[in-house]
């Protein structure tokens, strides 16, 4: 019924060449085709942010992106960060501050945080909360996430936001 199209892209630095249906979502491509199940799907309509990944360095919703759009692209997912044995400083900050509970929204939160840290001064809690506003967490009430992001932003700039 459906025709497929060949795409070449890198995911977490690994090159892939795959035939995909034009309708296949990036989220499903990552999870089903590549088996990278760290990227989670929470709403499939671009609101909850659980599926957030980096596309050529910018955060995008993988549930609103088609894999077929990504020929030549570089994708980074939560699996590109630290490992269980060797967490990255951001992951360690999340853990130290209790910034996760069920862990389902966490991959999207981490990726969004990476994007925020790169692009914004994050000089106040209000700015941090605004930066996180595209990611829903139902467990933490956000406070510990804000604490973790503030700590990393502060370490980055050496100033107290």
């Amino acid at each position, binding site marked *: *019924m459906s025709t497929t199209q060949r795409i070449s892209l890198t995911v977490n630095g690994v090159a892939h060449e795959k035939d995909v*249906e034009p*309708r*296949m979502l990036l989220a499903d491509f990552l*999870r089903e085709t590549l088996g*990278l*199940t*760290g*990227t*989670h*799907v*929470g*709403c*499939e*309509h671009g*609101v*909850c942010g*659980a599926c957030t990944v980096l596309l050529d360095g910018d955060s995008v919703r993988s549930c609103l992106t088609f894999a077929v759009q990504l020929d030549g692209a570089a994708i980074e*997912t*939560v*699996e590109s*960060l*630290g*490992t*269980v*044995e060797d*967490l990255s400083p951001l*992951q360690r900050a*999340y*853990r*130290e501050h*209790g910034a*996760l*509970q*069920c*862990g*389902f*929204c*966490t*991959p999207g939160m*981490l990726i969004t945080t990476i994007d925020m840290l790169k692009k914004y001064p994050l000089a106040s809690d*209000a700015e*941090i*909360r*605004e930066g*996180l*506003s*595209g*990611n*829903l*967490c*139902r*467990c*933490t*009430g*956000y*406070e*510990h*996430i*804000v604490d973790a992001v503030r700590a990393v932003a502060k370490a980055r700039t050496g100033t107290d936001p």
Partner: protein
Amino acid sequence: MSEVRPKIIGARVQRVEDPRFLAGVGRFTDDLKRAGMLHVAFRRSDEAHARIVEIDASMAETMPGVVAVVTAKDLAAMVTPMRAESRMKNYHATTNLPLAAEKVRYVGEAVVAVVAQSRYLAEDAAEQVAIEFEPLGELSDPEAAAAADAPLLHEEAGTNVIALREFERGVVDEAFASAALTVGGRFRFRRKSPCAIENRSYLAEYDQGKRSLTLHATTQVPGIIRDAVAEALDMPGHRVRVIAPDVGGGFGGKSSLYGEDLVVCALARRLGRPVKWTSDRLEDLVTTTQGFDEIVEAELALDAEGRFLALRSDIVGDIGAYSIYPWTCTVEPVQVVSFLPGPYRLPHYRGRVRAVATAKTPLGPYRGVGRPISTFVMERLVDMAARRLEIDPAELRVRNLVVEEEFPYKTGSGLVWDRSGFQECLAAAREKIGYAALRAEQEKARADGRWFGIGIASYAELTGIGSRIAAAPGMALNTGTETSTVRIDSTGSVTATFGIASHGQGMETSLAQVIAEELGVRVEDVEIVHGDSDGQAHGTGTYASRSAVLAGGAATLSARIVREAVVEIASHLLEAAPADIDVAGGEISVVGTDRRLTFKELARAFYSEVGRLPHELRDTVALEATKTYDPFFGTTSSATHIVALEIDPETYGVTLRRYVVAEDCGRIINPLIVDGQVHGGVAQGIGAALFEEVVHDEAGQVLTASFVDYLVPAAPEIPAMELVHVETARPNNVGGFRGMGEGGTIGAPAAIANAVTDALAPLGIEIDELPITPERLFRLIERARQNR
């Protein structure tokens, strides 16, 4: 020595479950793949109340990749439908079919299951199923549905009033007749969706050789689901295993049996292949059990000094289409009537509650269950009385909250409050927020014409309830016990197995802390096994703020027995009296000497180096113990929330300026986890107060089936919170823990409703409906201005 050793219980230990989630290698149900796995998509009803005239699946059956198309007729031979039975009088169980037969009762009810080789193909085919409906009468308004002439949702019940409960304690009408003041109103709390960020998902596998079934499920209650699947599919329990792997939040929405559980199990057995279904968000917002949908008429009588005399209430709970399994439809509305008197001295109380079936998604437990509503109503009544009496609302609470000497206190609904810091929490919250200064700030803001309000809510809840009290009246399920097995294996590793199912609460950490302290090992030495029905013979899971109390108690008891065994074995190996043996940090030593053993050496000696110990020892000592704990009554947790907020006169948006919670949850196992539970609970309470509402139109159509329309609060909507942990006398349950998973959600709606009312006091507006959306506020304010 042990006296100076740092305590593990009470320490801010980093969670052991975090690294796997942070690295993206947690294992949630939808992450699981199996060879030959098939996918299910459901064709659901787009009518609220209608007869199914005809189902035409001929097109779907021919679609690419389709393996089977199944209706209620096909399923009838495979599954016995479940009914949530109860001994409660005036209750009618409903027949809960996994797929609707003959008629549908809510928008979103599953009618046809399509099985295909991929989810994409299954969804393609499900779209091609044609169902002809003949609309039956509208059943959207619960009060209209309760009327004698309303069309019936469940004909066999003979009424839409699926449950009715009424009681009276004391002499209510006499007390009202003698009252100096009465306040009352009609209050409306609108329906919510739990909205765990992980949607529901089920994967069933049938082993044809062993004739056994394994279900991986997004559930809080694997033991309950195991029992239900065994019964519905007529299989012995030891051939059914239900595993809740990592579960992405539940909040009550994953604590009931769903038709989809049974469909994937039946299809996996029938087709001999693994079968998975994963919900999308639209399905979640119309099928996962919803919460908090009541109309409450209530009246409070006071004497001239502001002492509460009596309370009367009449409650209609909109329970949606079915009485859910196993909790029954009474779980939510009956809690509203039971908890309405709150933490107050209130000797005379009459309550009535009717649980009314409507053509909506079934109502179930949602974080706080009933108590967010009872607290909203009672705390509004308290503030209404304070205003009439011109007494500060905090002071009126001080006069009426149960005081230390009165515990245990039996409430007007028969609940018994154990010693808990009712007064202490109020005092601590006032001190933390600087209550007097805040009132002065409000004066000034008001003088400037700003809508600035302060709201207080005090409440009490029963947590960690034991076998004496049913989670819902008359239900056949025992939720009052949990079991723990602590075992040291032949490598010296410690494993503890439970019937609970942590899904965000961090129980792998909290329980490891309890066992580490009791057994004398390090937290990282303990592996916690949970969320697997094979773990214990009986265990009902994680819900109702029970796991720290029940599983923590069981862990304590079983760990103590194993510690005694360790000491006895070590006393032989180290040739010392048991009293001289110390166990700490994973090491066993003789006090005051350098003689020591690791757990590994002890285990090797006990299990393998058989000559090193008297052989009789193995008849009397085991490095394994199983203990069940039943707190019998349970524990009383309490809190006071105080919020300061301001309403924007242009947008009618509410901004929360300060938020203080002072709570008494007994002995804290891990402050990092407790703080997080309070934060998360409050955030859901804020959502319930200001944003979240499941909206149906008159025909029962759902108008809030996406996150664009159903507003879950994001970080900017939630304020920083200031928490005070008050620890009064410890409860006398094993461990001294109280439950605290739900409290935040209980206090927030009431505190915010009182604060908005306070902010609008110059206009004389009383908030009696939640959520307080900008639109509702606008209408209230416009009406108040026109009436001036």
